């Protein structure tokens, strides 16, 4: 049983060792993709032209406005005279967004109600829009935290003598670098490609060359063959993942705030699900081209588009949002963002981990079922 798996593993390892090109590709390409996408797909949006409609026109409102323009993210694009002029302002391209401060702004913050400042923006590029929303959120939270501290101090609550800088950072993604937001998505995308394509090719190649017939006649069962192969690609994918993550941390300053074991567990679940998809595909196709085609259309593309990597899930039409639940990418990216950026623990993201666990069990089970019925 184990000898058989080891025999297959060793054979696979020897072949791969000799195939320097593929070996290099498997180990280095993920990191190269990270660098390439990382620098090319840089979603950072800076110097957004922001118009201002300040109906409050008070010291406080000017202070808030100033907060926006003291960052590199927003440039002052002009004053918008009245609400009805906002649409035209954006349509004419004078600005990409308009900050609206209502007439009763001061009264609201004094009444300790969350102020109701609005930023209206051009939603035609949902990505940019999401990023701008992130900035706005961050700036407002910073500002309201400032106000809270001041307010408490005024009311005589010396918050530990004011020694603590009670300034909550933006909930996640401090510094609002979109690269950090991007890396989990990239890791998911890269790993999905690696885990589906590589084993598919390795298995289907044996079908194309006819060597699989000889293995199937020997007293090894299809599971041992598949596990022997998957074991090697699992180890390699894990290695590639470590490289990608280290690169992300070193070059893109992506933090690893959460528990390493939880991170490893999450990654392993995703790798198993991915390898399962690869194996499942290889039971369905008989040529490498079909393998590529199946892997890209059934798994890689949806896992990229429907995972929140490129397009935020919340801005998808409802039916498309529903579809995202069928792909492990969605849960993996959310879990990874949680663990890396927010330092989330299991209890914070169990609703992402459990679906991943489900995929990591269900997909290999489905593949086994196919194997037991149809062979490799």
């Amino acid at each position, binding site marked *: 049983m184990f000898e058989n798996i080891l025999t297959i593993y060793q054979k696979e390892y*020897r072949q791969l060792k000799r195939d320097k090109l593929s070996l290099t590709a498997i180990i280095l390409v993920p990191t190269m993709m990270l660098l390439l996408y990382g620098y090319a797909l840089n979603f950072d949006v800076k110097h957004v032209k922001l118009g201002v409609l300040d109906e409050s026109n008070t010291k406080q409102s000017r202070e808030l406005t100033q907060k926006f323009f003291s960052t590199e993210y927003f440039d002052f694009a002009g004053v918008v005279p009245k609400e009805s002029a906002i649409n035209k302002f954006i349509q004419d391209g004078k600005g990409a967004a308009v900050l609206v401060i209502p007439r009763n702004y001061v009264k609201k913050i004094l009444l300790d109600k969350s102020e109701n400042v609005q930023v209206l923006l051009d939603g035609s590029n949902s990505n940019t829009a999401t990023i701008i929303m992130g900035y706005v959120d961050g700036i407002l939270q910073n500002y309201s935290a400032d106000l809270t501290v001041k307010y408490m101090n005024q009311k005589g609550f010396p918050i530990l003598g004011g020694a603590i800088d009670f300034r909550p950072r933006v909930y996640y993604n401090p510094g609002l670098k979109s690269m950090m937001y991007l890396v989990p998505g990239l890791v998911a995308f890269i790993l999905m490609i690696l885990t589906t394509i590589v084993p598919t090719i390795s298995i289907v190649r044996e079908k194309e060359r006819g060597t699989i017939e000889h293995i199937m006649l020997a007293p090894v069962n299809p599971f041992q063959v598949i596990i022997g192969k998957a074991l090697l690609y699992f180890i390699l994918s894990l290695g590639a993942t470590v490289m990608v993550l280290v690169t992300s941390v070193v070059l893109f300053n992506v933090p690893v705030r959460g528990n390493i074991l939880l991170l490893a567990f999450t990654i392993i679940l995703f790798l198993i699900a991915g390898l399962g998809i690869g194996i499942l595909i290889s039971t369905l196709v008989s040529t490498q081209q079909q393998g590529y085609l199946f892997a890209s259309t059934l798994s890689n593309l949806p896992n990229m588009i429907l995972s929140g990597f490129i397009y935020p899930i919340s801005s998808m039409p409802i039916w498309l949002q529903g579809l995202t639940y069928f792909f492990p990418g969605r849960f993996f990216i959310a879990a990874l963002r949680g663990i890396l950026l927010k330092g989330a623990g299991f209890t914070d993201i169990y609703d992402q981990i459990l679906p991943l666990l489900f995929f990591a069990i269900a997909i290999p089970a489905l593949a086994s079922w196919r194997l037991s019925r149809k062979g490799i």
Partner: protein
Amino acid sequence: MALAIKAVNLTKKFGSFTAVDSISFEIEEGRVIGFIGANGAGKSTTIKMLCGLTKPTSGEALVAGFDVANHPEQVRQNIGYMSQRFSLYGDLTVKENIEFYGGVYGLGNSELRQRFEWVVEVADLKGRENLLTRDLPLGWRQRLALGCAVLHHPKIVFLDEPTSGVDPVVRDKFWNLIGRLSQEGATIVVTTHHLEEAEFCESIIMMHLGRIVVSGSPEGIRKQFADLPLFEIETSKPVEVFNLLESEPWISDAAIFGGNVHVYAETGDPASVIEQVLNKNGIAKYTITKAAPTLEDIFINVTRNV
């Protein structure tokens, strides 16, 4: 004598196309049997059904006493198979290929070492153990493939077109190896499209378009078809004779063979009819003799009207 293989109405269809059409045969233990037929005759499909690699559409096959459909495991334990396509890993060395197949067949260390020596010897690969298999000449690769297919001492060995593409010298070496396996007691089933190789077999089964057209020992088959109206014309002008006869409607085949003309004449009293034609056209010196049919002649004859 016990039967190694028994097939009854074995049929394989691919969609509406019938690749193997209800064939039945028996193969005794310890024999060397050749399946002979042109490309597409259904030889590989038959072999694959016997090995359990393809499910028959209908009919049944007993291999080593086990029903292929119901006891594929037991069948597999008793057979070795070398497919028409190159069955080794080109990117593994000779040694690694042997180790791999030894491994999947569960050979223990000492047995593997012993079989390793054996394969290297019979495949004439001493000193080349660490060469990549893809760098070996085809003849050596084929013998290595055969060696790997019989590492586990199977009772029945299936070899699908093992000699296709190799030159005659290497082919003879391959047949020597087959002879050696046979002496060790294995039943050997070989497919080929070279009729000359039929002579190496104790029994042959000729296939055409999914059917068995003739079977028996080469001797027996030749005897059975001794009456075929085949004639050999010895002449100093073979080309003229050939041209004259070829266009005759009752000549269904004509060929120049080593300076002589061979014809297949479907008519009453062929010898005198041929004589008439030649005399009428001014060919004087010739002798006509009734020729004993070769397996090639017989094969052409039996497949002509199918």
